[in-house]
């Protein structure tokens, strides 16, 4: 019998990716020139041989629905499935549209499942993890709840407003706080939880009885005293894509071959939907260094330290540095772009210069013409 049910959760309430999330949740945004952010979490689950996956969505679901299909993620199309679920009710206000409300609305699919354990992980984190190891650890430590965390030394710049853990002896979680960017070193919760399916159901019910504004992480922090909550350390690269800067930083960090090859390998592939795009054509005049480039591009200009998405056209004399260009954009002759995120189908023509800073990258809207 299958052991684990996978739940890919909504992004937490604090996630706000300026610009990008006007068009889709950031989990469905293009990432590294070929993926969507949520490919990482779904691939983690299917690579962990989890066959029964629930993916929760809310606003602007088009790109997620178009993208996600079990076969793409290497799941048997009969025996396994990725079920795309959403809150069935009309919420009088968006604040009521919490993950708990969504779980509650879809409780029949959770109650009826055969798996004894659930792993809940939100779709806006980027890391690789075998969830079997998490569940084995959870069983070995006889915990009620196991929370995956990352010890980070860049908490001043990254993982802002993420939960942090206060960890005691035997990895016991004693309390929660928020990362407000004050300290360098923090144990950051990856908001990935493992527990028995029955406890999960109890906690969802309890959360909705306590407050209709509660998110699932709130109820966990509420019961940290009564239950045995253990911390499980994740090692390796991890990023939380909860702001435009975090999106920008993660894209640029992963240009590093050493980091990327540990994140994505033949043993742990990141699955995605193929677009059947032809290779990229580098024409005369192209000067590309230190960059990640998707397929289907036509490049005649200069690209430095950047991530270039699928089907991007970069004309002669264009200059792109420290930027993320999402798929199907057109950067015309002599345009100069630095520290900028350009959303899909944008056309950049009539400008001398678009320049953000490393701390505050500029954002160019989807289908924008500049």
């Amino acid at each position: 019998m299958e052991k684990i049910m996978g739940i890919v959760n909504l992004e937490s309430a604090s996630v706000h990716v300026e610009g990008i999330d006007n068009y889709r949740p950031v989990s469905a945004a293009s990432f590294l020139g070929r993926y969507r952010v949520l490919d990482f979490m779904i691939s983690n689950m299917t690579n962990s041989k989890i066959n029964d996956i629930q993916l929760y969505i809310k606003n602007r679901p088009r790109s997620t629905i178009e993208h996600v299909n079990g076969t793409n993620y290497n799941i048997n199309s009969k025996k396994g499935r990725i079920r795309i679920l959403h809150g069935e009710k009309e919420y009088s206000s968006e604040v009521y549209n919490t993950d708990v409300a969504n779980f509650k609305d879809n409780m029949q699919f959770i109650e009826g499942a055969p798996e004894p354990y659930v792993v809940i992980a939100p779709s806006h984190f980027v890391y690789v993890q075998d969830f079997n190891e998490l569940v084995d650890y959870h069983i070995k430590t006889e915990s009620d709840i196991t929370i995956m965390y990352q010890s980070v030394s860049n908490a001043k710049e990254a993982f802002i407003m993420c939960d942090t853990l206060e960890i005691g002896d035997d990895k016991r979680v004693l309390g929660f706080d928020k990362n407000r960017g004050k300290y360098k070193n923090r144990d950051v919760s990856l908001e990935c939880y493992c527990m028995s399916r029955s406890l999960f159901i109890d906690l969802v019910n309890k959360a909705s009885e306590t407050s209709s504004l509660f998110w699932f992480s709130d109820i966990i922090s509420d019961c940290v005293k009564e239950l045995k909550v253990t911390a499980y350390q994740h090692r390796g690269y991890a990023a939380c894509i909860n702001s435009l800067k975090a999106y920008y930083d993660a894209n640029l960090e992963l240009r590093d071959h050493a980091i990327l090859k540990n994140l994505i390998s033949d043993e742990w592939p990141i699955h995605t939907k193929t677009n059947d795009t032809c290779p990229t054509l580098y024409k005369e005049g192209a000067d590309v260094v230190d960059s990640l480039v998707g397929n289907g591009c036509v490049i005649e200009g200069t690209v430095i330290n950047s991530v270039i998405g699928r089907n991007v056209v970069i004309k002669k004399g264009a200059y792109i540095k420290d930027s993320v260009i999402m798929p199907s954009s057109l950067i015309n002759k002599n345009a100069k772009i630095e520290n900028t995120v350009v959303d899909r189908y944008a056309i950049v023509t009539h400008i001398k210069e678009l320049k953000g800073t490393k701390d505050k990258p500029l954002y160019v809207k989807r289908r924008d013409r500049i």
Partner: protein
Amino acid sequence: MKQKRMVAMILAGGRGTRLYDLTKKVAKPAVHFGGKYRIIDFPLSNCANSNVSTVGVLVQYESVLLNSYIARDYVWGLDVPNGGVFCLPPREKDESGLGLYRGTADAITQNLDFLDLQNAEYVLILSGDHIYKMNYDKMLDAHIKNGADATIAVLEVPMSEASRFGIMNCDEDDNIVEFEEKPKEPKSNLASMGIYIFTYKTLRKYLKDDEKRNDSAHDFGKDIIPAYLNDGLKLLAYRFKGYWKDVGTVNSLWEANMDLIKNSGELNLSDPDWKIYTGDNNAVPQQIGPNAKINVAYITQGCLVDGEVTRSVLFTGATVGEGAKVCDSVIMNNAKISKGASLTRCLVMDDVVVPEGLKLGSKNSKDILLVTKALVNKKVGNK
């Protein structure tokens, strides 16, 4: 069972001896091409784009890889209830025992039961080793409109090269009146592309007759087409305009790859309305390193480039190390060009590692150098 209009049969059993080591363990249709494709992706994608959803693939020579590749019919979107990609190898039969395909026509004859089962009305015969984009649906329209018994796609070739092809001599309405295989003195420049549409009922009868003949080579060009002409059946030439290449040799395979980076753009694979589909892999996007110098190249996902690449095509997973130079070359899947190595006018086979500092090929060579593991070992041994 619902009648289907046209069933495609792709001839994919040939060995392709002039490709040497490239086809030692792999049938020619499965040879890689254009960065991320295999040659058979072209006829299969053309079928998918032309709404031909049932495709039989006649395999024979070294077919393990080819079989496993075409079995994934969802790659071309052909996993539909009324279609699919069917692998048809030679088989043991009750009355005749185990027999190989004796020729292109015999391969179809031996699978008439498959075509009966599919209720074929028209049969489209294709070759698994040609690179081109073509709408077979339009060709079928011409076949039906003209009331033809067979329609043959033809390409205008330069008169000087016509003697290398099977040449169709036609009347003013493009009805074929004579077929000449590699004529010394060609009367026309309309070359057969090896693409035929037959009305199935008639074809079935001719194939049955051909099967019994001892003097037949059981070949479409040599036997079936001449028999049709002899009996005065209506054969139509269907003129094709556009890119078409039979990549029979190392030089022509190299050339076809180079056509992808030419400015003329005759073979355009980026047309969103006529995509060439191929088995996807989980390769990461192409990684271009700090020392890379790329000047005119066709590069696909999974490549890692930190050297100098000039007028070359890199296939999935190919790596070019720091200071390595790749010029006018084709680097196939997962081949590794180590630091400081230098290649000119080479075609490097899958998985070959070119060691540090090794120089191969030359600017003025007549032929493209096929770089195999054996060749590299020999060169290193000689040092």
